[in-house]
């Protein structure tokens, strides 16, 4: 079999033992890594209703089929398990260097079960695997731990994937980081790892991806050509020049920059937090992920010194900036550093603090609750203090560490309205009242509110724009307005969701393939086929993506999720308070009708959203029928 190591490392932390599983090609063609492999393992091996913090929960870390291939943006791996934030299928992707290194070490995936009696870390050096004590690392910040592990192993090139003190404290939105700059932020999977007393996984490998490829020459040719294309495509050029911080100003201009807990869509102090301010006040250097010519990562100075944690991405700027009413770019950079040192998801953390700020301004939380902090919108100092309180579970931080949904249930009253979340996960910094498919993605995503389900609506607003033209090979050819729903829009959603899911299966970053970015869909397909020797058609490739989302859907149905969970926070059905889209709300009835259409298009029951037998069998998922709860069949 080509393009894969075909090996899974299985680790039982309770017994301290390992096993190697070898995958067959027949299996791998259906579940070729990442989201698909993780979904299959979770669905087949994790008993329903397993407590996310129980030793029985699984932590599945799976690289994608192309992770580590010499093609820009093919760097991603998935971390998966039952989410302590949502109670459903948990998943979070990251780029960087760790995923490619895992593949170079000879492994497609790691499946961790059980719980170590004391803190440990895993050391994977090619096919040599060792469990080592992490007692001396427990409680320490991520930068210190990475340095300590590299020193201990006497190898500066060891790639370290780890949780931080927040994961140890079981903060429900604790994440994982690799190289201190790349994050599996979402869904609280860092807390799952923490519950297993597993602080880190250090990896070193030497096997080049090309050696596994069916047609290495073609694969290298695609990689070389795409590396040149980066500078000639407007979308990737912009990512290289500004990176994600470049989103702040255009989103604000469109009235879709989440501000003050999604009350508003425009921020009056936007000039203080836009790219030009970032470039002037923070930027020190640019970086990238493994073999990626896009180079969208940023290095910054914090507190007058080079930060070891990289610079804030747009999501972090949005979450701790406008959404908390904060206009101090240095405070935002500090917030980013704190999140990365303690390893918190900066989206959920910022959004949960914004939620607390609104509760405070409405008297639902008082200075008595906050330990004396004046937790109003715009108070950067209080925001920074609260990040540390959450990470350490101190005072009000202990409640907020549960996430905004659980915190709102405890606080009571209007608080539930201020919790801007879906399925328990806080919204990313994209305002769906200006782009309705993003809202549909938030609602239907199996991991709770996620902004990476589909390419965002404005890309398809104009008939001759480059993104719409680039989507033609996927079958998307008609321009549709961002603020529209209905049958045609749901057909578009369906295709884009399959494509986005495929990216998460094969290991591409959202900033690689068109229509979001610069890699033509044909080159994605050619990369897969060159790596594997398969002869996948576009339809077959899309089916891989669809298979993965259906498995995640079944996982959630089994956990008791229903149609009522595929919705949006009440606030989004009300008008924005300011900006160019002032007064605009998502039309509730139309949204609900479109959800019904989307279910039907996906081959799910139009009322319940349960996948039909026919669709599951068409996706080679007939085996999963028996996993559907009896009452939903």
């Amino acid at each position, binding site marked *: 079999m080509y393009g894969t190591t075909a090996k899974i490392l299985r680790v039982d932390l309770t017994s301290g033992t390992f096993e190697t599983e070898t995958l067959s090609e027949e299996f791998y063609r259906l579940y070729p890594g990442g989201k698909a492999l993780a979904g299959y393992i979770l669905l087949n091996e994790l008993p329903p209703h397993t407590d996310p913090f129980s030793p029985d929960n699984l932590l599945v870390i799976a690289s994608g089929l192309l992770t580590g291939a010499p093609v820009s943006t093919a760097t991603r791996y998935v971390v998966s398990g039952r989410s302590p934030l949502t109670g459903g299928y948990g998943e979070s992707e990251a780029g960087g260097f760790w995923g490619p290194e895992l593949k170079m070490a000879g492994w497609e995936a790691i499946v961790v079960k059980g719980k170590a009696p004391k803190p440990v870390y895993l050391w994977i050096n090619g096919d040599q695997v060792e469990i080592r004590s992490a007692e001396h690392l427990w409680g320490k910040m991520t930068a210190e731990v990475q340095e300590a592990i590299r020193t201990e192993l006497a190898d500066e090139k060891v790639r370290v994937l780890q949780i931080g003190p927040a994961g140890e404290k079981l903060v429900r939105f604790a994440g994982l980081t690799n190289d201190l700059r790349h994050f599996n932020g979402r869904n609280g999977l860092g807390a799952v790892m923490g519950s297993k007393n597993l602080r880190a996984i250090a990896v070193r490998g030497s096997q080049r991806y090309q050696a596994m490829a069916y047609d290495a020459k073609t694969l290298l040719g695609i990689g070389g050509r795409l590396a040149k294309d980066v500078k000639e495509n*407007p*979308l990737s*050029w*912009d990512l290289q*020049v500004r990176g*994600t911080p*470049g*989103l702040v*100003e*255009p*989103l604000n*201009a*469109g009235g879709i920059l989440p501000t003050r807990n999604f009350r508003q869509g425009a921020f009056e102090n936007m000039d203080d937090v836009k790219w*030009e301010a970032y470039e002037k006040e923070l930027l020190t250097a640019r970086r990238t992920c493994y073999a990626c010519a896009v180079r969208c990562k940023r290095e910054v100075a914090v507190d007058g010194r080079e930060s070891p944690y990289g610079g804030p*991405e*747009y*999501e972090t700027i949005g979450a701790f900036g406008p959404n908390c009413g904060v206009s101090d770019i240095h405070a935002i950079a500090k917030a980013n550093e704190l999140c990365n040192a303690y390893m918190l998801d900066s989206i959920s953390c910022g959004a949960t603090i914004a939620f607390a700020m609104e509760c405070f301004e409405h008297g639902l939380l008082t200075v008595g609750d906050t330990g004396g902090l004046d937790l109003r919108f715009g108070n950067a100092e209080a925001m920074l203090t609260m990040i540390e309180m959450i990470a350490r579970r101190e005072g009000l931080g202990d409640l907020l560490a549960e996430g905004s949904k659980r915190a709102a249930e405890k606080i009571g009253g209007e608080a539930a309205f201020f919790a801007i979340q879906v399925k328990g996960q806080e919204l*990313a*910094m*994209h305002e769906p009242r200006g782009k309705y498919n*993003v809202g549909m993605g938030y609602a239907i995503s199996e991991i709770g509110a996620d*902004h*990476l389900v589909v*390419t*965002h609506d*404005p*890309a398809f*607003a*104009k*008939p*001759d*724009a*480059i*993104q719409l033209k680039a989507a033609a090979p996927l079958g998307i050819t008609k321009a549709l307005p961002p603020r529209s729903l209905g049958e045609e829009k749901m057909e578009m959603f369906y295709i884009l969701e399959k494509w986005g899911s495929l990216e998460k299966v094969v290991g591409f970053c*959202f*900033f690689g393939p068109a229509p*979001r970015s610069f890699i033509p869909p044909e080159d994605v397909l050619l990369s897969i086929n060159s790596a594997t020797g398969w002869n996948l058609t576009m339809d077959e490739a899309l089916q891989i993506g669809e298979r993965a989302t259906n498995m995640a859907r079944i996982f959630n149905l089994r956990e008791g999720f229903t149609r009522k969970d595929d919705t949006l926070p009440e606030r989004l059905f009300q008008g924005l308070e300011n900006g*160019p889209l002032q007064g605009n709300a998502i039309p509730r009835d139309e949204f609900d009708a479109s959800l019904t259409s989307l279910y039907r298009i996906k081959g799910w029951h139009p009322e319940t959203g349960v996948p039909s037998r026919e669709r599951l069998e068409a996706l080679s998922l007939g085996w999963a029928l028996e996993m559907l709860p009896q009452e939903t069949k």
Partner: protein
Amino acid sequence: MKLTSGGYLTFYMPERKRSIEIQLNGPTPLKEILTDLHIPLEEIHLVALNGEQADVETAIIRNADVVQIFSSVDGG
């Protein structure tokens, strides 16, 4: 007039500059200014004229005006 770009539209600006200043001889349709600069109109998602949203098809620009043009942008 001052023309500022955001999102991937900067790619199409002269010398890929974020903003430029242009001397106009009189009130000029924005569409004409952008066409002369070879900025593809189909990629323009938003226009702000002196801070207010404007229509690329109909906006008329004077020398004292500040025009911002933005492409669509995505998440990530």
